[in-house]
C-alpha cells in the first residue's frame, strides 16, 4: 500500500463533508463492492436463511442483523485498497473471506455491532489490527473527532435501509401486472395460518436487500470519518503531499532554481545545459562536446528507434562506452513525469442543440440520411393509415353500440327489470290484471296472506315499471321502502309505507290485519296499470 498513490482528495473536512466523501468513495467502486458482496455475504445469508428459516424467521433476521459487521469488513477491504490506488480482484476478497469471517468473530458481532459509532471503529480493528487497550484508546480518540457523526450515520443508515426495503416492495408491486399482488391484505388466504411466516420471510428479504444497498455507504462514511480524523490529528494529507513532493524532487535530482545552499550533483557548466536537455534529445547529443565522437552513429540509431531516448540510452550502453554525464542527466530528465506521454480521455457533453436543428431538415447534411428520411416518411404514412383502419375496424366491430342507441327507445335502454323481490315473483305477467279485485276475493275467502302479497307484489311491480327506481333481487322490504323514499317523483309514499308495514307484520309477525285497513288499502289503490297506461299514452 503506497500512501502517495491515494486516489482521493484527502484534506481536513467537516463532519458532513467527510460522510459525503465516504459516499463518493463507495460510489466510485460500487460495482466492485456489489460483486464482492454477492460472492461473500450473500451465500452466507442464503445458508443462514435455509438453516435458521426452518426454525423461525425472527432468528434469521437476528442473524442477518448480527452479521452486518462482516459486510463492513468486506466493504472496508475493497475501499481501503481502492483509496490507495490498488485494484482489488474478486478472488482476492474471496480468499480473504474465511479469515474475515473467523477473525475476532465475537468482537465483530458484539462490540462491532452494538457500538453506536461502530463504522468509525471498524477501520481501527480491521486496518490497524489493534486489540484490547490500544483499540479502545484509539476508538475513544477517534470518537472525539467524529463519534457523533458516526452515530448519526448509523441512525440515518437504519432509516435508509427501511426506506430501501419498503421502496423495493413498492417497486415490485408497481412492476407486477395489476392482477397479481405480492402481498394482498384483502386476500383471505393471507390472514391464514401462514401469515406470520410470510410476513417474516418478506421482512427478512427486504431487510437483506436494504442492508446490502445501504450498509456499504455507512461503512464508507465511517471509513471517511476515520481518515478525516487522522488527517486532523496527524496531518495525513500533509504526509502524503510531502511524500509525493519528495519522490518528485528526487527524480528531478537537480533543482531548477539554483541556490547556493542547495547541494548539486552537477557543475555549473553542465547545469547550464539543463534547458537544452529539456528541449530535444538529438540536438543535445550533437551539441554535447563529450559525445561528439559517437555523433554519427548515435544519430542513425536515433532515427532507427524513432528518436526514443530510452532506446538511445540503451544503444549507448550497447557500445560499452561509458555514458557521459549529460547523457545520464538526459536520461533522467526524460524519464521524468513531464516527458511521459499522457493520454487523457475527456468526456464532454455535446453542446445542446437548439430545437430548430431537431427538424427533419437537419438530416439533409448527411448523405445516406435522405433514404432513411424517405423510408421514415413512408413509415409515417403507413402508421397513420394503419391507425385509421384500426379505428374503422373498431367502429364496425362495435357497431351494436350505435344500433342500440338509434333503434331502441330510451325505455328499452333501461336497466333490466327486476323479476323477483324477496323470492316473490313481481313480473306483471304473474299478477292478475285487476289486482284489487283478486285481493278482495282472496280476503273474503280468508286467505289474508295471499291478499296482502298480491297487493304488495302489485305495488312493487308497478313501481318497477313506472318509476325510475331499480330494485334488486336481494332487496328486502325495508330496502324497497328506502329506495322509493329517495325518489322525488314518487307521491304514493304513505300508501306504500302502510302497505309494507301491514305486509311485514303479516309475513314475519303472523298478525292478520284488520278488515277495515285492508279494505281501505283496496279502495285507495293508487297503482292502477290502466290509468297509468292511459296517462302514458296521452303524454305520448
Amino acid at each position: 500500500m503506497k500512501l502517495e498513490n491515494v486516489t482521493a482528495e484527502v484534506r481536513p473536512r467537516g463532519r458532513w463533508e467527510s460522510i459525503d466523501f465516504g459516499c463518493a468513495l463507495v460510489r466510485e467502486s460500487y460495482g466492485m463492492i456489489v460483486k464482492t458482496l454477492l460472492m461473500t455475504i450473500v451465500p452466507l445469508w442464503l445458508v443462514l436463511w435455509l438453516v435458521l428459516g426452518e426454525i423461525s424467521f425472527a432468528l434469521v433476521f437476528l442473524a442477518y442483523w448480527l452479521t452486518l459487521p462482516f459486510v463492513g469488513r468486506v466493504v472496508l477491504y475493497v475501499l481501503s485498497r481502492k483509496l490507495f490506488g490498488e485494484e482489488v480482484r474478486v478472488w482476492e476478497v474471496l480468499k480473504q473471506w474465511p479469515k474475515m469471517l473467523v477473525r475476532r468473530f465475537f468482537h465483530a458481532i458484539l462490540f462491532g455491532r452494538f457500538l453506536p459509532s461502530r463504522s468509525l471503529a471498524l477501520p481501527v480493528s480491521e486496518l490497524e489490527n489493534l486489540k484490547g487497550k490500544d483499540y479502545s484508546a484509539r476508538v475513544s480518540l477517534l470518537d472525539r473527532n467524529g463519534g457523533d457523526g458516526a452515530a448519526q450515520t448509523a441512525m440515518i443508515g437504519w432509516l435508509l435501509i427501511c426506506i430501501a426495503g419498503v421502496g423495493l416492495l413498492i417497486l415490485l408491486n408497481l412492476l407486477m401486472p395489476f392482477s397479481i399482488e405480492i402481498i394482498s391484505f384483502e386476500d383471505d388466504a393471507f390472514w391464514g395460518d401462514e401469515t406470520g411466516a410470510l410476513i417474516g420471510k418478506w421482512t427478512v428479504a427486504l431487510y437483506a436487500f436494504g442492508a446490502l444497498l445501504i450498509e456499504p455507504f455507512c461503512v464508507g462514511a465511517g471509513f471517511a470519518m476515520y481518515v478525516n480524523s487522522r488527517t486532523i490529528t496527524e496531518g495525513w494529507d500533509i504526509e502524503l503531499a510531502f511524500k509525493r513532493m519528495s519522490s518528485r524532487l528526487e527524480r528531478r535530482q537537480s533543482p531548477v532554481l539554483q541556490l547556493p545552499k542547495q547541494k548539486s550533483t552537477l557543475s555549473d557548466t553542465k547545469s547550464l545545459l539543463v534547458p537544452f536537455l529539456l528541449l530535444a534529445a538529438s540536438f543535445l547529443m550533437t551539441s554535447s562536446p563529450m559525445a561528439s565522437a559517437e555523433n554519427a552513429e548515435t544519430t542513425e540509431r536515433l532515427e532507427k528507434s524513432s528518436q526514443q531516448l530510452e532506446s538511445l540510452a540503451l544503444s549507448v550502453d550497447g557500445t560499452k562506452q561509458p555514458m557521459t554525464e549529460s547523457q545520464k542527466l538526459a536520461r533522467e530528465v526524460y524519464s521524468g513525469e513531464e516527458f511521459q506521454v499522457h493520454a487523457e480521455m475527456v468526456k464532454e457533453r455535446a453542446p445542446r442543440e437548439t430545437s430548430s436543428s431537431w427538424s427533419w431538415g437537419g438530416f439533409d447534411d448527411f448523405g445516406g440520411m435522405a433514404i432513411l428520411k424517405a423510408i421514415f416518411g413512408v413509415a409515417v404514412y403507413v402508421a397513420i393509415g394503419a391507425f385509421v383502419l384500426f379505428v374503422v375496424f373498431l367502429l364496425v366491430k362495435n357497431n351494436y353500440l350505435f344500433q342500440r342507441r338509434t333503434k331502441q327507445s330510451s325505455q328499452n335502454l333501461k336497466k333490466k327489470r327486476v323479476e323477483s323481490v324477496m323470492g316473490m315473483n313481481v313480473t306483471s305477467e304473474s299478477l292478475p290484471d285487476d289486482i284489487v279485485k283478486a285481493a278482495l276475493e282472496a280476503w273474503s275467502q280468508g286467505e289474508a296472506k295471499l291478499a296482502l302479497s298480491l297487493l304488495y307484489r302489485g305495488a312493487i311491480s308497478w313501481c318497477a315499471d313506472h318509476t325510475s327506481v331499480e330494485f334488486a333481487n336481494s332487496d328486502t322490504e325495508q330496502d324497497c321502502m328506502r329506495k322509493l323514499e329517495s325518489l322525488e317523483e314518487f307521491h304514493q309514499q304513505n300508501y306504500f309505507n302502510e302497505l309494507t308495514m301491514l305486509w311485514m307484520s303479516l309475513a314475519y309477525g303472523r298478525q292478520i290485519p284488520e278488515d277495515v285497513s285492508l279494505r281501505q288499502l283496496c279502495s285507495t289503490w293508487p297503482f292502477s296499470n290502466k290509468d297509468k297506461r292511459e296517462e302514458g299514452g296521452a303524454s305520448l
Partner: protein
Amino acid sequence: MARVSNQPKIDTLQSVELSEGVEIQLRIAGVFARSLAYLLDLVFIIIAASVLGFIVGVMDSFVGSNYAMGLYGLLMFILTWGYFFLMESGKKGATFGKRIVGLRVVNTSGGIAQRGQVFTRNLFRFVELVIMPLIGLCCTMMTKRFQRAGDLVAGTVVVYAETDVQPSVALNSGREPRPPGWKLLREEQAAIVAFRERGGLWSGARQAELASHAQVLVKGESSEAVTELVGMAEWLTAKKD
C-alpha cells in the same frame, strides 16, 4: 505515479467553470445530510399540521364544521405542497430542516435556483419519495453530484451553505523567511503552508516525522527540520514585490 496523478481524484467538491474561465467549486451535500434535513422537515410539517388542526378545531364551533374542514384541507394542501417550494425559492434557498443542517439549494452553476427550478424539483419530490422511494434513494446516492431525479430534471444541486472552519493551531517559530530552494508545485506549497497552519495540533515527534518526509527540502534533523519548514512557509506566504 504518472498514472495516478493524472486521474481526477475522488472528491466531494465539484468544479464548475463559469463564464470568462472562472472556476468555482461547489461543496455538494450528500445523501446522509439531506436525509437528516428531510427528516427534520417532516417533523416540522407534522407539528405545523397538528397546530393547524388544533386551530381549526377551535374554529369549528364558531364557523361550522363544513367550513372548518374545508379550510383545514386548503391549509394542509398549502402546507404539504407549498412548504418546500416557498421555503426553497426564498432568500436562503432552504427549508428549516436544510437550514439547521446547513444546506441550501442552488442551480448547477452555483447561482440562486430559479423559482421554476425549485418548483420542478419539488414536484418530483412526491414521485420520488412517495411513489418510488427506491428510485429517488438510488439516484441520490449514485449520481456524481448527489442529485435526486428532481434535481437532475430541474438542474439544481444541494450544497453546504457555509464553510465550517476546521480546528487548527499554527506553529510559530519566529524564524526568518527562507526560500525552499526548489521550484514547487502549487499543491506542494500549499502543503508546506498547511504544515505551519495546523502543526500546533500535533506532538513534537509527529511534527518531526512529517518534516522528515520532506527531507529533500530540509537539511536539519527533527526540530530543526520543523523550523526550516516553517521558515519556508513564512517565505511562501510573505508578500513579494
